[in-house]
């Protein structure tokens, strides 16, 4: 039987024996079709710190066609100890470049590439060569820009960050994201006990399933971050709104103002600034500072490795879902609070 043993190219429909063996346990979960779509997808991953490394691992193991690791920063002792792809002697090298070898070894069937430019310097058409883009450690302005230019071209956009015990991910899968869900087939006909001698028809396997097609729409990051909280409807939904949403706004503003995230080394100064920004941001939105109690400052410094693992796992799986077009995507934010162990999916933006 002619199984293609050569490495898969592009939209090849054949799965090699090597792939079938390695991906067996995931093909049994999401199906062969999904695996093929993954296998034809190219992804851009920006930022190779703790969260980035987790996402890189998850996507490479899943078997995407290509993953480009983009990061302009250099390895420091701190950044090296935050992730598991960078070798111990790599201080001073470019972060993406230093991560390349170990990343590639995770799965030789994936084309892993490196780009050492700053993402801000990239022109529009750089992004168009990808099926999905994942941004970590990026400024709000950049994320909004990339989201805007990608959404119109059906390129799936993801953002994510980890701040201490907290983390989030955002996704924009475009106005019309098509996917399938596997549902059990409705077994018509009653069981043997009820039917008399008539019950002699061919049995339908109770475990047979059917694929149902669905479509869902997403709003832009800009819309999601610029919700108007002054109207009555928004105000009434505040009780069920995770405080993490406002925490994210504060941290993004900090990043824009200071060009970096809160650092343990400048704890005193940064905490003060965070509280100030919290007051400003909430006031601008017409909301009370009580929505985000002061205690937040103690828990949003640095990247906690286990939080990167949780957020990276959810984010990685969302990218896999979007590329494989299988299963309902989370819409459109996921917030993780590592202190409580709670992970919440919520929608912000126009319905």
């Amino acid at each position: 039987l002619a199984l293609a043993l050569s490495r898969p190219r592009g939209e090849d429909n054949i799965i090699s024996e090597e792939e079938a063996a390695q991906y067996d346990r995931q093909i049994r979960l999401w199906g062969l079709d999904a695996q093929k779509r993954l296998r034809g997808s190219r992804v851009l991953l920006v930022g190779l710190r703790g969260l980035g490394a987790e996402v890189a691992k998850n996507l490479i193991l899943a078997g995407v066609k290509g993953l480009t690791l983009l990061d302009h920063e250099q390895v420091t002792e701190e950044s090296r100890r935050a992730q598991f792809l960078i070798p111990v002697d790599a201080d001073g090298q470019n972060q993406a470049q230093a991560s390349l070898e170990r990343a590639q070894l995770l799965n030789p069937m994936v084309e892993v590439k490196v780009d050492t430019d700053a993402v801000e310097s990239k022109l529009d058409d750089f992004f168009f060569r990808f099926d999905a883009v994942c941004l970590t450690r990026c400024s709000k302005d950049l994320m909004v820009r990339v989201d805007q230019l990608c959404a119109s071209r059906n390129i799936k956009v993801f953002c994510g960050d980890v701040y201490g015990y907290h983390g989030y991910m955002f996704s924009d899968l475009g106005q019309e994201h098509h996917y399938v869900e596997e549902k059990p087939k409705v077994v018509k006909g009653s069981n043997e006990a009820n039917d008399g001698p008539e019950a002699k028809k061919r049995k339908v396997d109770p475990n047979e399933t059917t694929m149902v097609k669905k479509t869902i729409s997403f709003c832009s990051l800009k819309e999601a971050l610029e919700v108007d909280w002054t109207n009555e409807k928004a105000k009434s939904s505040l009780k069920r709104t995770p405080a993490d949403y406002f925490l994210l706004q504060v941290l993004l503003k900090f990043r824009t103002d200071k060009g970096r995230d809160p650092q343990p080394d400048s704890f005193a100064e940064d905490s003060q600034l965070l509280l100030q920004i919290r007051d400003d941001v909430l006031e601008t939105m017409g909301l009370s500072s009580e929505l985000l109690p002061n205690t937040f400052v103690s828990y949003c410094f640095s990247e906690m490795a286990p939080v990167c693992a949780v957020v990276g796992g959810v984010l990685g799986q969302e990218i896999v879902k979007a590329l494989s077009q299988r299963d309902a995507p989370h819409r459109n934010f996921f917030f993780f609070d590592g202190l409580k162990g709670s992970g919440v999916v919520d929608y912000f933006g126009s319905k």
Partner: protein
Amino acid sequence: IIIRVGLRKELADSLSSCRVLVVGAGGIGCELLKNLVLTGFKNIEVIDLDTIDVSNLNRQFLFQKKHVGKSKAQVAKESVLRFCPSANITAYHDSIMNPDYNVEFFRNFQLVMNALDNRAARNHVNRMCLAADIPLIESGTAGYLGQVTVIKKGQTECYECQPKPTQKTFPGCTIRNTPSEPIHCIVWAKYLFNQLFGEEDADQEVSPDTADPEVAWNPADAAARATASNKDGDIKRVSTKEWARSTGYDPVKLFNKLFKDDIMYLLTMDKLWKKRKAPLPLDWTEIHQLESSQEEAFGTGLKDQQVLGVQGYAQLFHRSVETLRSQLIEKGEGAELVWDKDDPPAMDFVTAAANLRMNVFSMNMKSRFDVKSMAGNIIPAIATTNAVIAGLIVLEALKTLNSDFDQCRTIFLNKQPNPRKKLLVPCALDPPNPNCYVCASKPEVTVKLNVHKTIVQALQDKILKEKFGMVAPDVQIEDGKGTILISSEEGETEANNNKFLSDFGIRNGSRLQADDFLQDYTLLVNLIHSEELEKDVEFEVVGDAPDKAPAPSVPEEGKNIANGNKDSAQPSTSSKAAAEDDDVLIVDSDEEPSSSTMEASPESSNRKRKHHDADTDATASKRKRLDQQPADDDEDIIALD
């Protein structure tokens, strides 16, 4: 000194000095080891009896293709040291149930974290941690779902506080006479493999069951029975293996006996077919005279995902019997094969035999891919679920180090958010069950059985080991003399094994004291004699919910705290199971191991047990949470959705 990633200094210091044990270096274990060292844990010991397989590589990221066949614990250690050379890691390629790992060994650690895939080991580690009074973090994943919980003696439930439904088994008559689902045919095919090529087991009969209570013979049928099958007499008198040997394992003769003669015999048991579609016998010659149905070109699918026609499976049956026959001959006199899903002719045989039987019983046939899932008890697995759960484990670990047990939670990972928008659902931990047969101060159980029909061996293996999780039980009768029934010392009480309990004066109301010294566990067993147990049921634990039905204590509202869609890509045993599962308890993904992984396992009884479990339970063993609905942590109201 750089303050470790945002942690308070005191916590960071205790991380560097504490010693932790990770049990398992597979899907969860690899992710867990990585998280532990990146968080600042310095002294880690990891144990795993398994070796690396290519199917692990989609998620066990510390391993590469070149490591296939090597020890998981060893390679995991080496890979971790590469990105954290200052970590102090000890790796054991061994079973945690080895008596070397006694209570003293466990006392070396401040924390134990399980990353296991089977209940026996979980039970055992649970008891060791109770005995040593060390906190234990339990976890499990299957597909998109996962769970983490914390166990602390005296403060929380232990792993065995809530009775867990035992592995699903099917009645003998369903397997032998009236299969109605593919899984019944697959179990039958695995039994057949053992009867023909492996270790014959009295519990794994494949021939028609004349003792089926549904059948109700009358004398007039006797003649019909006799003429229905030329081999009728042989069915009763000669074992399947002996019969096969007498024909030289002739595939055609085997085929006709199993799929024609035995089926015709079943047809004479006409009461069975009054309300069921009767089976249709196959004949070797007839099959090959039919126009061969167009075998679907597999084209863009996996080769294994093809579903062949009857001729195809007949051919596969023929080929695999011949190959297995050669394997037997090669091994020599008295040889026995062990079924292994990764051994192609063994897998071919089960695929073929199961499908032929499905065809006989008018079921849609299944591809080798699907049969392998069910026969091999394969749990689908991906990297991301394990990554999330391993992250949660470390977050709980940080709390236990501070002894903040009131902050610890059970956390469920769903596939989709619940109506409260939660994808990760933290729930408060429950206090210990005062009647737990493991962690209560003087654990006691009551077991119903027939003292005249239960042999000592069965008490040891099926009741004390399998049901009550002991590894090396010592049993004495509370008869005033302290008569020793079972000794864990090899050979000491071997003479007792095949005797009946009644031979020792055991009767209704007798009490036995069972000890497992390794687990520091004593269980008082009260016996009730009964002659009215259901067919195929050897014993019952009084107070347990019946094996197959869901526990009645789950309130209706609890079911609505949806944990999202059950992953339906994995074929389950029945649609009923799919509807009832909601909360996923710790999941056992006790995959049928390939023979190579058994080298490290010292217990041959362990091996046998694994076979039995995998035979009977083909699902991703999702367990029901039997107690009350989980209380949301961040609000005072119990969640009712």
